[in-house]
């Protein structure tokens, strides 16, 4: 019994699956390096301004940030489960899990933006702008907060893209366009989401915990 036919230039469906998976991991490699520069800037900045960075961490919204960590970790679980459901041809369950992931991701973004709003209210803006920095003039502190906004902002952009991908994938699964025979379409979106989670796993301790 066949699923959809594979693309004509591939000699088999298995070959297409292999190719797509390798392509996706190469893309993840490039995304990792995109964030890499920010981690490098943080490392150098922290080395130069250890107490300012610790001060910045102390001012971070730890509860919200940690809640967001929990949300993303759960969302990785739900998307992983959705892949497994589709592997077993349980389309309905898969879609439910995908939509749950989308909701969790949306919650992440909502919390993130509320966090930004809180920072702005406290006078902390990127670029060392904002009344907070008038009273806390350590250069390292401005650097910490600008790096925070940049890193979490770039991450939030990726979360948004991930939500769009998850949503459209959920639609395609529900319509039967993605099935267990062409699992890689869903797998790739799941991989992207896991990478987003991976990046956050490291952003969280650097900007919220220590």
């Amino acid at each position, binding site marked *: 019994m066949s699923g959809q036919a594979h693309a004509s230039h591939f000699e088999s*469906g298995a070959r297409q699956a292999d190719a797509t998976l390798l392509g996706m991991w190469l893309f993840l*490699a490039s995304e*990792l390096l995109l964030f890499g520069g920010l981690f490098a800037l943080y490392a150098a900045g922290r080395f130069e301004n250890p107490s300012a960075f610790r001060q910045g961490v102390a001012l971070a919204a730890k509860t919200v940030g940690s809640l967001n960590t929990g949300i993303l970790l759960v969302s990785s*679980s739900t998307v992983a*489960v959705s892949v*497994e459901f589709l592997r077993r041809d349980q389309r309905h369950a898969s879609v439910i899990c995908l939509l749950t992931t989308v909701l969790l991701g949306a919650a992440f973004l909502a919390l993130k933006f509320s966090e930004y709003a809180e920072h702005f209210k406290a006078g902390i803006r990127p670029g060392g702008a904002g009344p907070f920095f008038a009273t806390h003039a350590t250069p390292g502190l401005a650097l910490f907060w600008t790096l925070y906004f940049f890193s979490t902002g770039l991450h939030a952009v990726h979360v948004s893209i991930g939500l769009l991908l998850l949503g459209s994938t959920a639609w395609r699964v529900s319509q039967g366009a993605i099935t267990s025979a062409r699992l890689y379409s869903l797998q790739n979106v799941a991989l992207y989401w896991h990478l987003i989670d*991976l990046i956050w*796993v490291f952003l969280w301790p650097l900007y919220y915990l220590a």
Partner: protein
Amino acid sequence: MNPERPPNAPPLSTLVLTGVLLLALAGASYGLSFLTLGAYALPVALAIAVCKALILLFVFMEFGKLSTSAKLAAGAALLMLLLLVGLMLADVATRVRPPLPPPTVS
């Protein structure tokens, strides 16, 4: 039935338990962050992060089941990342900052 389903796909219970484990590790990291660990705070938090990352990578992202080429791609990226961070940090860490000359009395 999907003929291409790999024989060793993770059962659902594994995935759910992994999620619970990840939350537990996050919880531990959160709790530890309230203790005054001084200089150890960041390394400890990052070490837990590395554990979570490995779990995400091997269970959810099924890294172990990848082709050699895909593993190499990911490995190369990680290596380059460490290189970038490492040599940038090394620069900042090994710069010699000569003491400023004493102020001249004018």
